[in-house]
């Protein structure tokens, strides 16, 4: 057992799970408040990455300028989208809102393709954060990953304090469940909606910025991340922030571990069989005939491929055995 490997991979997974949570928390906030499931949420993540790329790389301003600036810019874009797009389709119902955000996601992807091209934009970790922070065993843990964890956690603490300790936060919490009452009390609920949408998209953009050096930036980024985020909120339970956190952690950590390990299902079976001291004829590399069937493909599947499938399998299992999600309340 290589404890160094396991620990570092766990920490890497933590970093990933945390920025997954940045995105899914914003999505959950928007959903809880406005009932809209923002299909384009991952697109704001992607926009965050691209804006950071422009600001930090093309315009030569550093990553440190991009870090605060990009969420503000994308948050502003989000508010515009809410004010002029979402609000307009709101009267057609939730399904129409979902279709609208789907169209938006699609269009944003095409737009990015047009302006930036299909290729992957390279981005290097900012110099001061390059290198390893510490090593466990002989496995190095990168400083940048630590930075990601630090930023994510600070944002969450800040948000938590904002929501629970300030007056604005109280109003937002109230508007989350009783928008009509809050409106009758004189607060400008449409403004609050716009602000929450902006904050949600800003969070996604922030995640896009910090994930930039670790994730490949290309127009398909949103299409890659999007389904995972939706799986996270379904698994965690729609509308539950805690559920989103738990699900983000599970999926982030496990997929990172699957990605990092060099195993295949076959080798795992082999190891287990060896541990149990079983002589198994199947240990021989599967014959061509066996490979042609799905079983063969399954066995030869690498854990990295399992990592790609894992979130969706988890979602299916949750849907069968616990449809309201891990920590979900009943859908209103």
């Amino acid at each position, binding site marked *: 057992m290589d404890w160094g490997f396991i620990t570092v991979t766990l920490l890497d997974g933590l970093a990933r799970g945390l920025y997954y949570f940045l995105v899914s928390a914003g999505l959950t906030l928007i959903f809880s408040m406005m009932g809209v499931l923002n299909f384009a949420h991952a697109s704001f993540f992607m926009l965050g990455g691209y804006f950071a790329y422009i600001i930090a790389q093309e315009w030569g301003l550093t990553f440190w300028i991009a870090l605060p600036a990009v969420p503000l810019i994308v948050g502003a874009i989000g508010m515009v989208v809410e004010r002029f797009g979402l609000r307009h389709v709101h009267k057609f119902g939730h399904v*129409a809102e979902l279709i*609208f955000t789907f169209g938006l996601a*699609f269009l944003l992807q095409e737009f990015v393709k047009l302006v930036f091209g299909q290729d992957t934009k390279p981005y290097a970790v900012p110099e001061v954060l390059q290198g390893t922070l510490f090593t466990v065993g002989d496995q190095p843990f990168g400083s940048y990953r630590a930075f990601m964890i630090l930023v994510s956690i600070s944002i969450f603490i800040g948000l938590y304090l904002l929501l629970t300790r300030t007056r604005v936060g109280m109003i937002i919490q109230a508007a989350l469940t009783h928008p009509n009452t809050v409106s009758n009390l004189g607060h400008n609920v449409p403004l609050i909606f716009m602000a929450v949408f902006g904050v949600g998209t800003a969070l996604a953009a922030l995640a896009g910025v910090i994930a930039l050096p670790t994730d490949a930036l290309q127009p398909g980024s949103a299409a890659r991340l999007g389904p995972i985020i*939706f799986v996270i909120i*379904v698994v965690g339970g729609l509308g539950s922030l805690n559920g989103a956190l738990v699900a983000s952690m599970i999926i982030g950590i496990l997929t990172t571990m699957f990605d990092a390990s060099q195993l295949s299902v076959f080798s795992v079976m082999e190891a287990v069989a060896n541990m149990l001291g079983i002589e198994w004829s199947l240990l021989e590399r599967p014959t061509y005939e066996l490979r042609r*069937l*799905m079983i063969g*493909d399954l066995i030869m599947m690498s854990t990295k491929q399992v990592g790609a*499938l894992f979130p969706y399998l988890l979602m299916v299992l949750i849907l*069968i055995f616990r449809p309201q999600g891990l920590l979900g309340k009943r859908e209103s």
Partner: protein
Amino acid sequence: MTTTSERTYINALDVRKKNIRFNPAGLPVGIQVFMFAMLALILLGGYFSGGELAFGFLPVPTHTLLSQSLAIILFAMSYNMLLGQGGMLSFGHAVYYGFGGYAVVYMAYFFEAPFGLPGFNMAPFLPLFGGLMGVILAVILGSFSTRRAGTVFAMISLGLGQLAYSAAAVFKNSLGGEDGKSFARDEHPFIIPFIGETDLWFYKNDTIYLIIAFWFLIAVILIFLFSRTPAGRLSNAVRDNEERVEFIGYSMRSVRYLVFIGAGFFAGVAGGMSALAFESTTQSDLSNFYSGVALMAVFVGGAGFFIGPILGALIYQFFAQVLPSTLYELYLGIIFLVMVMFAPQGVAGIILMHIAFVKRWRKLLIPYGAAIIATMVAVFGLVVIAEMMHHVQIAGASDPNAHPLDWFSIDTSLAFNWIWAGAVMLAGLVGLYLIRKQVSEAWDQARETGDA
């Protein structure tokens, strides 16, 4: 003096005659039959003049392109069963399409003499195997994904679609991974069951078109009839008011499940058709993009209307196959978003809305005419700029001349070109903005007249 109940009964007798005539499409049965006969004739015409000029001047697409179009139209119609009829938004419908295709590819290996029956081969029935696969998958996946409707259902379908797509990459041998699986249509004669051999050959594109067109016609008729059955009506009811359905004695879940299976069947048939035409099915047939195509086609065409998905699929085909531009996805995306915001009833809905207003076309002429001109101007500017940007991306360094829609040549290195194109686009948008009040008034009037 007649009693209340007698009077009611007598009036009901009058109504009885009207009942049979007034069916949901508003057209009498005779006209419906006539329209399907016309469809059959058009399809047959495609067989005879595929790839050539009909009546000497009308260019007809090739047989393969026709086959593919029919597959996409059927795919869109199956999606309409889900969305337009049942009110279920799915982001993973391509799963049934793709696996229908895989099923056909596999069955094609066995298309000679199944079960040892003489004078019989599988070829004409291949699309049905796609449908069978679609049903099996829909029964399995629908068992847990149709429990909830609306947003949750959409998310589940997205996840399942992604699961299938990723799985296709993993199963390299059985599903061919990213490249998919293919087969070759060999030199076998097309044998019509119980009638005998024909002069048609399986490997020829026009024979395949005939098989596909035949099943297409049958499928379209079945889908049309389905909406007039109790199950079809109930699916409309669930779309309108799912809670109420429970209080008339039906489980809304069961209704949704049933519609889901039906949609899966026809999607599978469509996928089978596509596999037959192209001799292969690839991973991209399962993709979320392709599911998105179904959604866009149905929505733009008009969800819930019978011809909606047909129009939408044809519009998609126009952009994807006819328009000489690689940016067709961008244009489709813009059209889609604009329609979601301003015309969610789709093209079919717009047409229907204006039928009653046709008599008063004079009123519409100025606002609509101005709006159309402004839109065309804006679109022209937009297309020029977009194509120029794309060109710069692709080949800007070597050749500065872009060719928007293969129409004319424009030098992307001259700043002036960018400026005037941008100005044109802006002018069009400004025009639209100025005329928007008159247009929306005319629009509202048309809608009210259409409703009454």
